[in-house]
């Protein structure tokens, strides 16, 4: 307590030098929280959007299905049982039938994935209700990115060619009923959504599905003949991308922190060099060398406390403002990132993030202050009192 009191007194007495160090450290402190808050906010948003648009609370896959291996798609379908049909009627499960196809927008050929989706489903946010079923025309809905890359608009016709269950090629023209806006690239890029019953008929897979998406109201249980995949598994790729972004950011944060810590280290070295007489006086007045080392260490470490207070003074309003308004990212129509990016990211500052950042700043500042302060324990007090360099 005495060390802390004396350290703050000395620190504040040092004036501008202290505040310049504190300012540099507070920038690092606020920026670390901001950057991590943004990544966390992005992560939460991406996970929420992916769950809402694609994965629900989990998916039941046909045992042969592997979303990373297109060769499995052909064999990944099974009839929907009565038991499952009841769940679909209750809107707790949404069946999806998946098939590969080639689309010919304006004469060009492009690989697409056909997804049959129940227009009545309420599990996913996908606007499947915009798929009219009974006027003799086949309709499809696509995402904005797909529309952009295929140069399609609502009302345009799109020729599709696919192989059915028996390996027979077939082709049909569908009309684009809706172009939806979605932040999740895997829901949009190269995906064409058709009414489930239409696709079942096109593929000769009556009453069959590739996977079943579980909604929040689904009472979790095993479904015979289907493998459950939870969101930890389904969102693992997303998490890996976010983690890699975080790792990349931590290099930048580390550099920023190092610059601020070098300033403190430099101040401490200079302080011990210039304040030998003061050190000698402390010892003459009855302080142990360990206590003097303590004062100088706490003094350097106290930069971090002041930096946190200063950072809080300008950082809290700034971060709250960004949290309220979000940070505009624009809408990426071509979705080049292959990762869900909303138009605005709302940073998320968790208690853990703030606590960890405080700990990192305080601990590192204290360590770099301790390193030069160790020299004091080797000083001869008689020489220090004379202010002689040792």
């Amino acid at each position, binding site marked *: 307590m005495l060390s802390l009191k004396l350290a703050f007194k*000395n620190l*504040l007495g040092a004036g501008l030098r202290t505040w310049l160090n504190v300012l540099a450290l507070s920038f690092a402190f606020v920026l670390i929280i901001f950057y991590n808050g943004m990544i966390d906010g992005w992560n939460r948003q991406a996970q929420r959007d992916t769950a809402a648009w694609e994965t629900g609370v989990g998916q039941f896959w046909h045992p042969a299905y592997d979303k990373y291996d297109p060769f499995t798609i052909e064999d990944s379908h099974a009839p929907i049982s009565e038991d499952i049909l009841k769940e679909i009627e209750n809107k707790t499960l949404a069946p999806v039938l998946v098939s590969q196809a080639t689309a010919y927008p304006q004469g060009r050929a492009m690989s697409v994935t056909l997804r049959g989706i129940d227009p009545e489903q309420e599990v996913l946010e996908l606007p499947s209700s915009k798929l009219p079923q009974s006027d003799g025309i086949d309709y499809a809905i696509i995402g904005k990115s797909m529309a952009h890359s295929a140069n399609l608009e609502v009302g345009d016709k799109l020729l599709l060619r696919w192989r059915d269950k028996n390996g027979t090629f077939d082709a049909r023209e569908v009309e684009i009923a809706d172009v939806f806006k979605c932040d999740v690239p895997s829901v949009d890029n190269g995906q064409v959504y058709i009414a489930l019953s239409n696709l079942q008929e096109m593929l000769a897979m009556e009453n069959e599905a590739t996977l079943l998406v579980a909604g929040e109201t689904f009472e979790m249980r095993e479904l015979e003949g289907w493998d459950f995949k939870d969101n930890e598994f389904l969102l693992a790729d997303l998490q890996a991308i976010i983690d890699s972004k975080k790792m990349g950011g931590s290099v930048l944060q580390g550099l920023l922190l190092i610059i601020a810590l070098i300033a403190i280290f430099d101040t401490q070295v200079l302080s011990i060099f210039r304040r030998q007489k003061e050190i000698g006086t402390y010892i*003459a*007045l*009855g302080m142990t060398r360990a206590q003097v080392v303590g004062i100088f260490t706490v003094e350097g470490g106290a930069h971090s406390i002041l930096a946190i207070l200063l950072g809080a003074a300008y950082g809290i309003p700034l971060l709250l403002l960004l949290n309220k308004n979000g940070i505009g990212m624009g809408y990426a129509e071509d979705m080049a990132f292959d990762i869900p990016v909303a138009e605005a990211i709302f940073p998320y500052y968790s208690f853990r993030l703030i606590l960890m950042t405080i700990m990192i700043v305080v601990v590192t500042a204290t360590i770099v202050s301790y390193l030069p302060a160790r020299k004091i324990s080797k000083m001869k*007090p008689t020489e220090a009192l004379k202010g002689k360099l040792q």
Partner: protein
Amino acid sequence: MENSSIIRIEKLVKRFPVGRSEFTALNNVNLTIDRGEFLGLVGPSGSGKTTLLNIIGSLDTPSEGVVTVLDNSIASLSHKQSSKLRNRHIGFIFQTYNLLPVYTVYENVEFALLLQKLSSNARKKAVTDALEWVGLTDKIKSKPAMLSGGECQRVAIARSMVKRPEIVLADEPTANLDSKNSHHILQTMKSLNKELNTTFIFATHDEKVMQYLNRKVSLEDGQIVKDELMKNSKN
């Protein structure tokens, strides 16, 4: 008050390494100092005054011989024990005052008491008393940079006296002061010596200080050459 010996020095030798050889700063020094003495270690520069003062104050240790201060053998004290000895029983006054620049007069004087973990009220009373002794109660909020040399040295005296030590060691306390301030300081110390029976030991070659001494120990080349009682000292 009892005037027993509180410092005993026997066959003290202090050597300092200088390059590959050694310099003998004190050579076979024998000295006994009683409680309540107002004693000066006098001699030219390099005679060993400050070295002797530093060893008595447990800031340094003897190379040979025995130095006992308040029944503590200086050579055998650990860092912690010597710190405790300085904090509780020994006050220091330096030629350049050595006040802590960022602290006020009050805080500078209070510093030694903070280490003793006294209550806030006890500290306040002790600091006020000490500042009254040196006549600086009107400057308690001033910082050292705002004080004259004489005032700074009076703060240093108050700081050394606030814990009511048995021994005060003063290294050239008047060297940076003019004549008027020097006498003022010395009178203050002399009255504290009488009032509290504190032992004052000076390292000095200032004639003004010598006028106040009860005992003058002359050093030359690290040896005591004369030890005389001063019968006609001021006050």
